[in-house]
């Protein structure tokens, strides 16, 4: 070796592989305004679609007259449900086994529901024409309170389901009932409660909110009538699923549909489902023969396409007097709005809510979920979380705090006492999951030491005394949250979407000169896949990440996959990438053996090539091997160097973390100030620590927003409130607390690289940390539970209710 030969470390660093804080390659275009989003697309002859929406939350439609609108120059068509019936598309199936109106068919079920689709030469004309479409409504009684939805005199929201007492998930009990889902052992749980020393029972609500990505939902549909081919560009987190659904609904063969998801400006679950805007654009393009663009505005986004949460969770815990938990019983009333359009794997009407036993060793548990219809928008998407996991984590983490209060135990100590122990993994939970790996005690201890937990409790005590003496009007809360996520949907044995198993895929092709194109079935909306996927490949096949192009989102070129949501990309596609890369490495080994004229068993892998065992100077780099693969492959071997892998995961992965929030609240105004927020995440193997940190910052900011103010509220008459950024709380850098991040590493034993997924953990774990901090602050005044969101006026109200205002 001469001096110019790079060292092993230098070669490793040059790869920028796993573990490297590689800068996000996609940001070069995003930070320069050079991203290509759906709305950047301009096709020749393209026209625009926009919706006439209902001002009423529940009404019969007696007449739609578009004649005046059609007279406006530039208006091309106005579609109504009657038109869609001609192509059998007035209704569409939802991912949850329900059906949903595309355009109002005889009635509307929520305010701002889509009534007619106006197609015009430009957006201005379309909006003018909307004002000219005359719709006659006959108002019906409005149902907004889910707790009243199954009253005997509750209005019938869904006459289309009249007499159908069997739903997609079993029997329905009432005309506004959607499903009942039951898991666990009812009798054993009842026994645990009968024998308990202490029990708690609290109705914990997780209010309705919205993922609100920066870019709203949008698409361009273009039907080429000559070729019989449909191309749809859209904001799709799962483009392949959209293509399959489009084919099934339109009867256009799947190979003649091209679905392309270009750059996406955030999704957070909002862009998983299929919306009336997509269907109407497609139909309008089929009708007009020209490309049709549809772009949602902010109010439409917040008030119609997929809310999140709206779970009302009656939570009971049984425990011994020493704090050992013995049973968990949860009943959820799930408000689904007018249609059940939840984006869950098909067999899971309440997602993976049965992770609700959390990080604790509950010997037995019982869970029931009842879904109901109300006059609200449909949705129920996983807003930056795996399916209904945020709700579950909030439920158990609030529950544990309430139990600690009742036992007069410290909430951190109560958690530690009940943690699943490291030696119990893989752990079988009472509600049916097998947790893959975890070391909760180590993570918790590290977190408590770093934040100085015991000292904070001492300080809090002193502050409470000072408050009681009238020396301060500020109270202090410490929020503890120890969450376990369940991500990586999912194993074909229990996860599918409309029958398609939830595997994912990767295709890697090494070019003769040793650079790479790779494509996956996932679709980044900001997660940084172009950066991290290349890092996995770089480490696995020894080609620098900078020489690896990652492409997603085009169903014609990418292998079939189920898309990106529920933190599934790394657990599923990440595994497919590693396995496809290993196939390439295996072939490379045979080629190298041929080149070096040794047996492949005499070779060993060394960072970026193969070398002869005991003779490291006899080596071939991947670049050399790639050239040979195309130039002089071994006899009887196919030339080329590429591989495809479809990965069906054997299990989910279970990331976890310990979060602490320290908060000060001014009881006179209710204004809460987050003094410190510490987040320790264990997501197994860390692919890019900088991207992890960015994901955690973003998720915590959303958690902060949700817990402290973000809400889609309805008044009793069904008006949707807060559907603009004036009221819907999106924190700016000014309001956002400073985040302290940390980690431990407990790899997943069943994942090829041991990675678990992290993008959603901070939302899952963050919300309970904030809510527990607020609740903890008020505890010494006699508080048990205050519902979210904890905005200033509600904190003030809580202080008032607890007698803190003289």
């Amino acid at each position: 070796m001469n001096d110019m030969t790079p060292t092993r470390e230098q070669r490793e660093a040059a790869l920028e592989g796993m573990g490297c804080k590689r800068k996000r390659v996609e940001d070069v275009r995003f930070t320069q305004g050079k991203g290509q989003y759906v709305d950047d697309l301009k096709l020749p002859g393209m026209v625009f679609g926009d919706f006439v929406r209902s001002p009423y939350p529940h009404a019969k439609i007696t007449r739609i007259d578009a004649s005046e609108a059609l007279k406006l120059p530039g208006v091309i068509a106005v579609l109504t449900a009657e038109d869609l019936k001609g192509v059998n598309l007035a209704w569409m199936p939802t991912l949850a086994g329900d059906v949903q109106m595309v355009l109002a068919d005889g009635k509307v079920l929520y305010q701002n529901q889509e009534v007619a689709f106006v197609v015009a030469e430009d957006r201005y004309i379309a909006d003018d024409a909307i004002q000219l479409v005359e719709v006659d409504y006959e108002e019906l009684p409005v149902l907004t309170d889910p707790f009243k939805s199954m009253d005997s005199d509750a209005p019938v929201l869904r006459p289309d389901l009249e007499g159908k007492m069997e739903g997609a998930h079993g029997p329905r009990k009432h005309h506004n009932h959607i499903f009942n889902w039951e898991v666990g052992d009812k009798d054993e749980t009842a026994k645990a409660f009968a024998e308990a020393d202490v029990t708690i029972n609290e109705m914990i609500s997780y209010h309705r909110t919205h993922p609100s990505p920066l870019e709203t939902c949008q698409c361009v549909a273009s039907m080429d009538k000559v070729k019989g081919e449909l191309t749809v560009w859209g904001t799709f987190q799962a483009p392949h699923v959209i293509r399959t659904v489009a084919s099934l609904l339109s009867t256009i063969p799947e190979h003649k549909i091209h679905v392309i998801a270009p750059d996406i400006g955030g999704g957070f679950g909002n862009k998983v489902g299929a919306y009336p805007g997509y269907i109407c654009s497609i139909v309008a393009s089929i009708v007009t023969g020209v490309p049709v663009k549809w772009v949602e505005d902010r109010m439409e986004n917040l008030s119609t396409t997929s809310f999140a949460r709206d779970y009302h969770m009656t939570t009971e815990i049984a425990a011994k007097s020493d704090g050992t938990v013995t049973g968990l019983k949860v009943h959820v009333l799930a408000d689904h709005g007018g249609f059940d359009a939840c984006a869950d794997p098909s067999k899971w009407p309440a997602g993976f809510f049965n992770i609700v036993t959390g990080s604790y060793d509950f010997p037995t548990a019982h869970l029931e979920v009842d879904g109901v219809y109300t006059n609200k928008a449909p949705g129920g998407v996983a807003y930056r979380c795996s399916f209904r996991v945020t709700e579950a984590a909030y439920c158990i983490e609030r529950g544990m705090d309430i139990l600690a209060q009742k036992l007069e135990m410290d909430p951190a100590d109560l958690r530690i006492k009940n943690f699943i122990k490291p030696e119990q993994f893989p752990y079988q939970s009472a509600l049916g999951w097998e947790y893959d790996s975890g070391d909760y005690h180590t993570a918790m201890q590290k977190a408590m030491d770093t934040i100085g937990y015991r000292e904070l409790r001492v300080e809090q005590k002193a502050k409470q005394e000072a408050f009681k003496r009238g020396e301060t009007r500020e109270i202090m809360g410490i929020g503890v949250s120890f969450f376990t996520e369940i991500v990586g949907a999912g194993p074909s044995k229990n996860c599918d979407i409309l029958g398609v198993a939830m595997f994912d895929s990767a295709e890697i092709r090494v070019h003769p000169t040793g650079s790479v194109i790779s494509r996956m079935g996932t679709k980044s909306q900001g997660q940084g896949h172009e950066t991290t996927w290349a890092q996995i490949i770089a480490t696995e096949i020894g080609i620098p990440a900078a020489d690896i192009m990652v492409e997603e989102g085009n169903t014609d070129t990418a292998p079939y996959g189920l898309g990106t949501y529920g933190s599934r990309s790394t657990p599923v596609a990440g595994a497919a990438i590693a396995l496809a890369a290993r196939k390439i490495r295996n072939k490379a080994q045979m080629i190298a053996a041929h080149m070096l004229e040794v047996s492949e068993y005499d070779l060993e892998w060394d960072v970026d090539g193969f070398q002869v065992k005991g003779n490291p100077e006899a080596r071939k780099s991947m670049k050399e091997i790639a050239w040979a693969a195309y130039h002089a492959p071994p006899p009887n071997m196919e030339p080329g160097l590429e591989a495809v892998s479809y990965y069906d995961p054997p299990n989910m992965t279970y990331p976890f973390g310990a979060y602490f929030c320290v908060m000060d609240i001014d009881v006179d105004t209710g204004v809460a100030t987050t003094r410190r927020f510490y987040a320790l995440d264990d997501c197994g193997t860390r692919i890019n620590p900088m991207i992890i940190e960015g994901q955690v910052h973003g998720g915590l900011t959303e958690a902060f927003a949700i817990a402290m103010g973000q809400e889609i509220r309805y008044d009793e008459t069904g008006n949707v409130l807060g559907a603009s950024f004036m009221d819907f709380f999106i924190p700016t850098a000014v309001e956002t607390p400073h985040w302290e991040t940390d980690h431990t590493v407990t790899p997943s034993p069943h994942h090829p690289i041991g990675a678990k997924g992290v993008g959603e953990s901070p939302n899952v774990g963050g919300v309970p940390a904030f809510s527990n901090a607020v609740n903890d602050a008020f505890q010494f005044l006699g508080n048990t539970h205050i519902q979210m969101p904890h905005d200033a006026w509600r904190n003030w109200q809580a202080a008032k209710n607890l007698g803190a205002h003289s």
Partner: protein
Amino acid sequence: MIPGEFTYHRPSSVAEAVAILVSHGDEARPLSGGHSLIPMMKLRMAAPEHLVDLGGIADLKGISEDGGTITIRAMTTQHELIESDLLSEKLPIVRETSLLIADPQIRYLGTLGGNVANGDPGNDMPALMQCLNASYVLTGPDGNREVAARDFYEAAYFTALAPEEILTAVKIPTPPAGHGWAYEKLKRKVGDYATAAAAVMLSMSGGTVTSCSVALTNVADTPLYAADAGDILNGSTLDEATVARAVAAAEAITDPASDGRGPAEYRTKMAGIMMQRALARAAERASA
């Protein structure tokens, strides 16, 4: 989120602008920074057929002082209010209030004239102008008239301004040197209108208040000049009991809406808290 059709005018003098307003009556609206009007047009809550952009009228810019009166011309932006040395020195409460309006991007365009002419109870400048006992110069086809800020606001979006008039300037009596001042605003986040806000101006001598005025933002359908509260405080030493009485008097005139910022009861109480805090800071700043 797309406005209806309108015709755009850009006159270069006040007279020309007034003439356009006269010829179109109710169908025309002046446009200043556009940061209240254009959002309303996008929601089609306002649909003027003629927009008269005042941005091309050089006469409507500038801040000056003459004979104990500070004159701020209508098209002065909120950013320019913040940057003005004259205001920082003689009338620092204007700077403090401006910094609590919206965010820098909006303040580069939003004007004082638009803010006070708009008639939205959420705007911060109207209550401040009432506190300062400012008057507005309204220019119409028959020339100028002056209306006191305390008499200008009738109801939400209803003011003494006639459709063919333009608000051309705001005149503020220069407060005495050594006065105390504070604007306290409670809001949910940057860029939000007030849950409640209070402006306080006072002078003190030997620990006693010699003059005091108080006004409140966004707790009724107009800004509120809290005359009684000021009167109660005047002559006091700001002892706890008097302050409590003044706060109660101010709270009594509020009539806020319940909205996303909180129920009416909360917003009334916050008006009181903001006033109390503004009073404390103003007293601290006043030279005894």
